[in-house]
């Protein structure tokens, strides 16, 4: 079969070839196209091609650029001659990707590939139309050479003062067509000249295999230990953050996400920097451990309670899995000029985030025990996946991913650790549960009012302890400090002083220091001495027997009175209502102002708000003479122009023999005239779907926004809604 087009090429492929294409470009089969022609269309769509180009390595992309610079059809030899000897492999890959296809006469590119790559691939100008004697370039005068050096590596355009009067160097080049004028002030260097000057190659240099990652060698054991520590730490951070928000939910910004102040607050609370705090918040958000509720409050979800009960391994896997696949980039928070990007906000999604993350992790995993240095690592990642769509943040993305991988424990001391590798390969046992330090079930209380948990605390103990003590230092161990405020917090949580004491005595391996015991007792003694509550009104009476009477009066049950002192009752109703109820029951209350003075005199209310009298909708004032003249003038002018327009339209209509068209005003006018004359009309009428049909009608009357008329086609009476009448013309 003769291959002339991309479609032909696709037809020529066998099943294996097609599967290969689909494997390389999965977007082509979702959904599966109905036939090869539509496959070809989809495969040449710019969107799909852009995706395909994104998955090329730097070398492959260079080869593709070189191909664009060649005239079609070209051969592999042509490609190699202007690039690198290893181009053959890349060409095969490009063919697999469907970015290049063989025809009978040679290799070709699907049309949209060359359109998609910028007009000047690899900084080369367009092909020359004239025949060039490139050998003459070696005799170029000094001035011309200077110009050439400027343009050699692109962009191939240069501006000149005036094309008609160029300098001697440019003139020499223009004469020989080594430069071509683009417009009045711009010249461009043809592609052939560029390639010639670049020594017959398209790019400065080629690297056909990925550059090796360099870095520091680490000892496997300490890498894993460090990673385990990171994992333990990150789990602690998440827990700490969510407990914090459980106490005091943060308010989301109106524009969505977490405010800078709240971010600062949590970073100070957990003792990490703000980037890390943003990362932890995002991590919890992705894993569904926190949610932003209807009242815009940020607080932990029920999943958090479930998560807490799970093993460390499961907890970590949940976090890790979500981090790997998300398109959200927490590194963007607080970055340089983009200060307004909020954690948990709507602006964190980036196209390449997940793929970059995956690439970084895989690359790390390929070289266990190597802590790469950022520059070499970035270079390699950029070779494997030179980002065309988001080049701006690719380098940062890589740095952020490395940073986050360390926080999360994919790496320890910067090198890939066994837990992350096991997780990626999907093995059942990651080994976290066995390697993390075993939780301890005791604390050591010391006489300086601190308690130290010499390892990760069991969950319940940690929760109870943090209710009555403040965390002073975190890490392998936790240092808690007891203070009056922290004990008070425990009491506020509903624990009694005795409960706190028993809990501490039970949990502490060391005897309870007496000062702490006293501190707890002292605070407990004072706690709740003052009581504060809400009430709407009070009833006061110096006669306690009257108070007793009121309390026992069944008719006053509605007031739900509570006696708070022998002479004072409080009531849920407001003072005016309470007084009405009391009066109806036969008592004689008087109102008391907040300063205790009696409010006497009859009640006569005044509004606090400013008066806002209603707007008057009345008759229209007769317009002044000048207004009238102006109005008339403007109407006349409008009329003239619309008349002119409708004339032109009529001409066009009659020329085409199509439906009549009139403006809404004209329509009304004509209808009114012809209803009066009882003369047949031709109208255009739009149906429900907007299709306009031509009707001949005898108008009868206009009523309720419709024209009632007899339709000649059916001979029946029908009403035509006036807005749907597209035009009227007399017959």
């Amino acid at each position, binding site marked *: 079969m003769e291959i002339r087009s991309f479609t032909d090429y696709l037809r020529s492929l066998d099943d294996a070839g097609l599967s290969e294409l689909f494997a390389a470009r999965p977007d082509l089969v979702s959904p599966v196209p109905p036939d090869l022609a539509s496959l070809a269309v989809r495969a040449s769509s710019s969107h799909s091609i852009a995706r395909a180009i994104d998955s090329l390595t730097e070398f492959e992309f260079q080869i593709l650029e070189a191909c664009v610079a060649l005239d079609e059809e070209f051969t592999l030899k042509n490609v190699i001659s202007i690039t690198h000897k290893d181009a053959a492999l890349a060409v095969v890959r490009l063919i697999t990707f469907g970015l290049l296809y063989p025809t009978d006469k040679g290799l070709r590119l699907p049309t949209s590939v060359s359109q998609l790559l910028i007009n000047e691939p690899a900084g080369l100008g367009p092909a020359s139309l004239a025949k060039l004697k490139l050998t003459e370039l070696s005799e170029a005068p000094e001035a011309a050479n200077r110009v050439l050096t400027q343009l050699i590596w692109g962009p191939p355009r240069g501006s000149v003062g005036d094309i008609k009067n160029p300098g001697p160097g440019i003139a020499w080049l223009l004469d020989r067509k080594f430069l071509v004028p683009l417009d009045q002030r711009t010249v461009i260097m043809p592609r052939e000249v560029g390639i010639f000057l670049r020594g017959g190659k398209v790019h400065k240099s080629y690297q056909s295999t990925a550059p090796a990652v360099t870095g520091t060698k680490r000892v496997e054991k*300490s890498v894993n*230990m*460090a990673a*385990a*520590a*990171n994992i333990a*730490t990150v789990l602690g951070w998440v827990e700490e953050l969510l407990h914090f928000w459980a106490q005091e939910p943060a308010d989301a910004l109106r524009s969505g996400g977490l405010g800078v102040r709240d971010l600062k607050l949590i970073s100070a609370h957990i*003792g990490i920097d703000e980037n890390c705090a943003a990362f932890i918040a995002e991590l919890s958000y992705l894993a569904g451990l926190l949610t932003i509720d209807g009242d815009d409050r940020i607080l932990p979800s029920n999943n958090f309670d479930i998560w807490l009960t799970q093993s460390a391994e499961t907890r970590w896997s949940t976090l890790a899995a979500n981090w790997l696949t998300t398109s959200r980039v927490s590194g963007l928070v607080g970055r340089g000029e983009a200060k307004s990007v909020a954690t948990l906000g709507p602006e964190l999604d980036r196209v390449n985030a997940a793929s970059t993350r995956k690439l970084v992790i895989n690359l790390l995993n390929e070289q266990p025990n190597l802590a790469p240095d950022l520059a070499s690592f970035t270079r390699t990642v950029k070779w494997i996946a030179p980002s065309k769509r988001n080049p701006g943040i690719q380098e940062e993305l890589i740095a952020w991913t490395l940073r986050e991988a*360390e926080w999360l424990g994919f790496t*320890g*001391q*910067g090198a890939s650790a066994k837990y992350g590798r096991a997780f990626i390969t999907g093995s059942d046992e990651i080994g976290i549960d066995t*390697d993390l*330090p075993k939780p301890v079930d005791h604390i*050591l209380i*010391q*006489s*300086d*009012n*601190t308690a*130290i948990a*010499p*390892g990760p605390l069991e969950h319940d103990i940690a929760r109870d302890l943090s209710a009555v003590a403040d965390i002073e*230092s*975190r*890490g*392998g*161990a936790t*240092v808690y400090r007891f203070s009056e405020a922290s004990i008070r917090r425990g009491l506020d949580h509903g624990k009694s002083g005795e409960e706190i004491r028993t809990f501490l005595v039970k949990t502490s391996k*060391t005897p309870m*220091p*007496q*000062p702490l015991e*006293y*501190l707890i007792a*002292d605070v407990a003694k*004072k706690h709740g001495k003052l009581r504060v509550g809400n009430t709407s009104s009070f009833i006061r009476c110096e006669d306690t027997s009257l108070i007793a009477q009121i309390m026992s009066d069944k008719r006053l049950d509605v007031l739900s009175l509570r006696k708070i002192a022998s002479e004072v009752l409080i009531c849920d109703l407001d003072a005016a209502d309470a007084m009405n109820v009391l009066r109806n029951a036969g008592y004689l209350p008087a109102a008391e102002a907040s300063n205790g003075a009696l409010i006497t005199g009859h009640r006569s209310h005044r509004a606090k708000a400013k008066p806002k009298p209603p707007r008057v909708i009345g008759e229209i004032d007769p317009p002044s003479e000048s207004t009238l003249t102006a109005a008339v003038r403007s109407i006349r002018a409008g009329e003239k122009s619309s008349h002119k327009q409708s004339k032109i339209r009529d001409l066009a209509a009659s020329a085409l023999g199509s439906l009549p068209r009139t403006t809404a005003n004209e329509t009304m006018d004509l209808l009114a005239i012809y209803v009066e004359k009882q003369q047949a009309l031709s109208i255009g009428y739009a149906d429900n779907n907007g299709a306009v049909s031509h009707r001949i009608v005898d108008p009868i009357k206009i009523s309720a926004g419709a024209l009632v008329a007899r339709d000649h086609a059916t001979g029946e009476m029908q009403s035509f809604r006036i807005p749907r009448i597209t035009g009227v013309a007399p017959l």
Partner: protein
Amino acid sequence: MTDGPLIVQSDKTLLLDIDHPGSVECRRAIAPFAELERSPEHIHTYRLTNLGLWNARAAGHDAEQVIDTLIKYSRYAVPHALLVDIAETMSRYGRLRLEADPVHGLILITKDSAVLEEVIRAKKIAPLLGVRIDKETVAVHPSQRGAIKQSLLRLGWPAEDFAGYVDGQAHEIELVQKDWKIRPYQELAAEGFWHGGSGVVVLPCGAGKTIVGAAAMAHAKATTLILVTNTVAARQWRDELLKRTTLNEDEIGEYSGAKKEIRPVTIATYQVMTKKKNGVYAHLDLFDTHDWGLIIYDEVHLLPAPIFRFTADIQSRRRLGLTATLVREDGMEGEVFSLIGPKRFDVPWKEIESQGYIAPAECVEVRVNLTEAERMLYATAEPEERYRYCSTTTTKRKVVEALVERHANDQVLVIGQYISQLDELSEVLGVPLIKGDTPVKERERLFGLFRTGEIKCLVVSKVANFSIDLPDATIAIQVSGAFGSRQEEAQRLGRILRPKSDGRGAIFYSVVSRDTVDQDFAQNRQRFLAEQGYSYRIIDADDVFQGKI
């Protein structure tokens, strides 16, 4: 995971489990670079600070050693970020060096010209520098040696000082160890100081700081200026030096309000040094007029501001600071370290106690219930009067009487803040009172009587907080203090820490009014001692009256 005694926290604190068998070895290993922060009963807290790490560098430890030590003793994995931070911090030390150049005098020199550019451009540094000699060298005004070191430290580029110390005028001084022997920790402290060049030695009260001073002088063998808090302290230093060293009376001079002697070893008071005449410090010249080889600052936590400023100018002389409690309520600890020198020696009080060099002490807080009438008066008192009111109540006086009676056979000191309260106590108890306006002669006479046991009880105001030597005081009763001063509390406890001949323990009573600010202040005051492992026992005043202690 190993089973080490050390837990490294992510906030750069190190927790040392002292019940662990390896704790002693570990303490020794981390002491050169970590600062002891608190040392209660079970877990001691050390902190890694930039200053501490730089000092370790100065003493010849490199980052790798520090990191290896941490990893070796750590129970859990050490946070990687922390290790990176340590390496990074330590690498900043010594990029800049202060050297003595034969041509240009004092110079700041570097191999990393970017760093030099950075510091030259700093506002605080520029005025201290002289001419730029070349790309990597700049001259420094010799008088600004201290100031530039301090400013560089603040910028985070500590300079390594190779300019050395002046030897001062030589003067033969030796320790005379006939009927006594220098204790191992005193020797360690003196050596630590000598090898470091300058610095601060922290030792508990009663642990013999004077001897550390004497030992340092024996190392220096040069004329020495000793700065002390007051005249009584000056005399005690003199007596001590006469007893412990080869110095004789003619070699030791006193420079105070009363006498102005300048001898090879001169003891001056802070008070006279900071006395102004016509708006200038008339006596600060003392630093300069003589070629001192060593300057000792006693009770360095009390160092007054003018001396601070002056100390910056004498960076080429060796400086030794002595203190029991380097907590300054004014937060100037950092200044002390950068001007006098880093902490060269620090040891938990309890460790010295366990070696028997200071007396074991029991701290007791006696809680006094105010009477109903007193409570009402307290509640309505003006805020600024409240502390005074609740710390001087009549109920307290009765408790003090009961306590003094209980310890009728012991040497008892009653210490307080408010003179009217002390006057009253002195009258009721029938014992002499020593306060600010008591003449030195009278003071010395009373101390003498107290020492010999002729007087069993003394009431003292805050003048006796420091440096009075009362060998046989076993009981201290504190009735009021300077608000929440932790440092004062520690100094007062120090009054009774000298080992007793019969090996008895000392008791430190603090009488506190319950449910008042007195109690809050007491809690704050006790913090330092609690962090040193002194645990307070709280008893009720009624128990004192009923004799149940």
